[in-house]
């Protein structure tokens, strides 16, 4: 859009004005006067403004994109799912930054350049529409949208779901206001969620009363515990850790479930695989 010649623009504007003139046939006294005077202000400073805005936009986008590449704003990633989720977050932010900088640049520049402290005695140029700009805009937003649906959307979702077969099954039951963890392999019941590092675990949840939601912030995973049905999600922990070291290692109820919803949380511990095996057998 910026590289177009002013001469081209003029024809565009003329095209717009001719449609306007068709309407004005009914107001004959204005016809001759308006047509030439309408055209002029449209073209004023368009090139200058476009160049300045494009420059500010390019520079600010570049700076922010580079900055964001080196900044890690995320808390501990203790599971493969956390890496996937944060990666999606990162890509979406990379895609969103140019949109943010573009909008803010046009907004800020327009305010800075075109503000009038008192009532503007002249009207602005009668730019009713520019089909080319609208079409380009629609094209860019559509491409951004479809790209983000496919990547990170669908591709990362497939990654997030993990392998069909898991190494370990854990059943977690929610009840007002706690969680009960059960390991069917050794029929062990626990009040902490203990998981092995490096193995894929499938968590099965259900609820004894109302809807709860099992959230482990360090893993970026969440699944609701719904009475009358069993839901599942897969987790592959990649970091050892415990609630004492980092409060993100916890199962937190994320769906409002009544009086002590706030307190409905239990610690999570990720152990080395051999330690975990010992823990699992040890009743």
């Amino acid at each position, binding site marked *: 859009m910026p590289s177009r010649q002013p001469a081209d623009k003029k024809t565009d504007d003329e095209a717009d004005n001719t449609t306007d003139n068709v309407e*004005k046939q009914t107001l004959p006294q204005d016809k001759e006067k308006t047509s030439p005077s309408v055209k002029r202000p449209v073209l004023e400073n368009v090139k200058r403004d476009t160049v300045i805005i494009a420059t500010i936009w390019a520079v600010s986008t570049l700076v922010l994109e580079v900055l964001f590449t080196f900044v890690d704003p995320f808390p501990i990633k203790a599971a493969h799912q956390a890496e996937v989720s944060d990666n999606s977050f990162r890509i979406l932010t990379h895609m969103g930054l140019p949109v943010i900088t573009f909008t803010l640049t046009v907004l800020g520049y327009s305010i800075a350049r075109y503000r009038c402290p008192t009532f503007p005695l002249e009207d602005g140029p009668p730019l009713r*529409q520019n089909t080319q700009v*609208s079409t380009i805009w629609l094209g860019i937003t559509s491409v951004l949208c479809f790209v983000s649906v496919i990547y*990170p959307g669908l591709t990362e979702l497939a990654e997030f779901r993990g392998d069909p077969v898991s190494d370990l099954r854990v059943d977690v039951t929610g009840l007002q206001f706690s969680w009960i963890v059960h390991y069917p392999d050794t029929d062990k019941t626990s009040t902490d969620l203990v998981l092995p590092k490096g193995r894929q675990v499938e968590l099965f949840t259900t609820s004894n009363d109302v809807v709860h939601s099992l959230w482990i912030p*360090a893993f970026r995973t969440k699944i609701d515990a719904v009475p009358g049905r069993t839901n599942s999600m897969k987790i592959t922990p990649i970091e050892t850790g415990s609630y004492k070291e980092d409060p993100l290692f916890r199962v937190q109820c*994320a769906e*409002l479930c009544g*009086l002590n919803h706030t307190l409905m949380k239990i610690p999570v511990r990720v152990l080395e695989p051999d330690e975990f095996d010992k823990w699992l057998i040890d009743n």
Partner: protein
Amino acid sequence: MPVLFGLLSGLVGLALGGGGAAAVRALSGRPAFDGATELILVFSYIGALIGWVLGIGGWRYAVRDWIGRAPRPFNKTGTARYFAFSTDHKVIGIQYIVTFIGLMILGGLLAMLMRFELSQVDETIMGSDIYNRVMSLHGIIMVAVAVATVLGGLGNFAVPLMIGAKDMAFPRLNALSFWLNPPVAIALLSSWFFGGWDTGWTAYAPLSETNASGQVLFILAVFTFGVSSILGGLNFIATITTMRSPGMTWGRLPIFVWSIFAASIISLLFTQFFAASLVMILLDRVAGMGFFNPDQGGDPLLYQHVFWFYSHPAVYVMILPGFGITLEILSHFSRKPVFAYRWAVASMLSIVFMGAIVWAHHMFTTGMADYLHGPFMGLTELVSIPTGIIFLAALGTIWQGKLWMKTPMLFALAFIFNFLFGGITGIYNADVTTDIHLQDSYWVVAHFHYTIVGGEIFALMAGIYYWFPKMTGRMYDELLANLHFWGMFIGFNVTFGAMFWLGVNGMNRRVADYEPHLEGNNLFVSAAGFYLGMSFLIFLYNMWISSRHGPQVVDNPWRARTLEWTVSSPPSEHNFPVPPLVVGHPHDYGIPGEKHAVFAATGGAPMPSEQEIHSEGDRS
């Protein structure tokens, strides 16, 4: 006093309804009251509602008509009009605005209580029980404010004026829509005496089937509010379709009217789903039907599907008029036409229909089938395309304009800023892999406050300042309004901006307490929240003092083109002494001699025929 009479009549209805239910129980050999609190509550409410509606004006305006006697309107003048059943859309609009701004202040005070509790780890001023109830009340009050203030308030006041109509299509229905709201407020507030309710405004089953009886009053109140919304939507659609003045073609509708039209379609078609889901809960509770009870073969997820089938489109009821006000004000204060007007209209209408097919993005973590994740993610992200067109229209309108930086313009520009972040952060909620982490966290709290408060409420403020001179005939104080704007803009962005970080770092929503490592940020949010709250004091003071002592204004202080500025401030009872003839587009600034409307002098030239008006066309 009509209101007092309505209340008395409501009390009689309450006694008849509740007493009747108890009497029928007693007659059928059951204990009259024991174990039937909720049943009696329901019938008392129904009785009270009928009594109230009859007493406040239903009898005088409608029932007398039906039984063949002449209706007896109140015909109040001056301030008394606002406290009586009035069929004047301008009175109703102001009734809506004042009532719901009052409720917004109440909801805001509840938010202050919540932020006070959350300013420190552990219990500060209230325990979990009170916190949950305060949070739930805050939620539903603010949802009602967001649904009704712009649509019912500004829409009622401005739409008939902007299309050159004398009034709404169904004035009595319009008054009924408003007067259904006081029982809603009373029921919500009195639920506190029945244990309140602690399920948030979403009222997820089965929690909402096992908690205190306050939940029943919540259901009845929201149901009534829904009736009011449906009637309001119906009325707007009928008004905009049939009451446009000659020459006001669809292509010449001011963009705000289009946005109200789009929002009304959603109101009319989708509110039923929320009402239905709540009625099912009520039947589960009172009649033991078990729609959502797995022990009886019900399904808790069913509630969420039906609930979100309305409640997602509902956010477009809130934001579409926000788009409309913003584009309207950007056009008038940039002295330029709305850029890509037709594209913007098409976007708003497509948002209406896309709103209907994205609801399950609220449910990615509920365990619904995995294969639904992809489609609902894709459909949800599609909404960014029409929303992007609205941004194109907004930026194209201010591009090269003459930006007159009055308070309405400041709020409209702030809308672009806030909604940009509200919209972009929405993508993270639409994307399944990020949403699974962010769902039900403070990220979501920040996101929807950015869209609804940063978007709609900023637009509401823009609209209130913009139409204030038309409503009152006086001008607001520009300095105070500027102070309010900057306080609100900075306070809002600091408060809710910081909440994004809280969500990513593991703070779940709807909690009275949190992990100690989040304390610093929470204290910061609370302090910013109090600052945001205080900015509203300036607003209230400005409205109060300016509506009484502000300088008198001319008919068109903004020199805007739309029809409401062609009549006196405030407008006379029937708006237009001479009916306007629309001959051009409302937003066509910058074309010398181009007119939006002409007024035939009384007894002057005959009105042109329908064909002559339309032959001018409006091809933009």
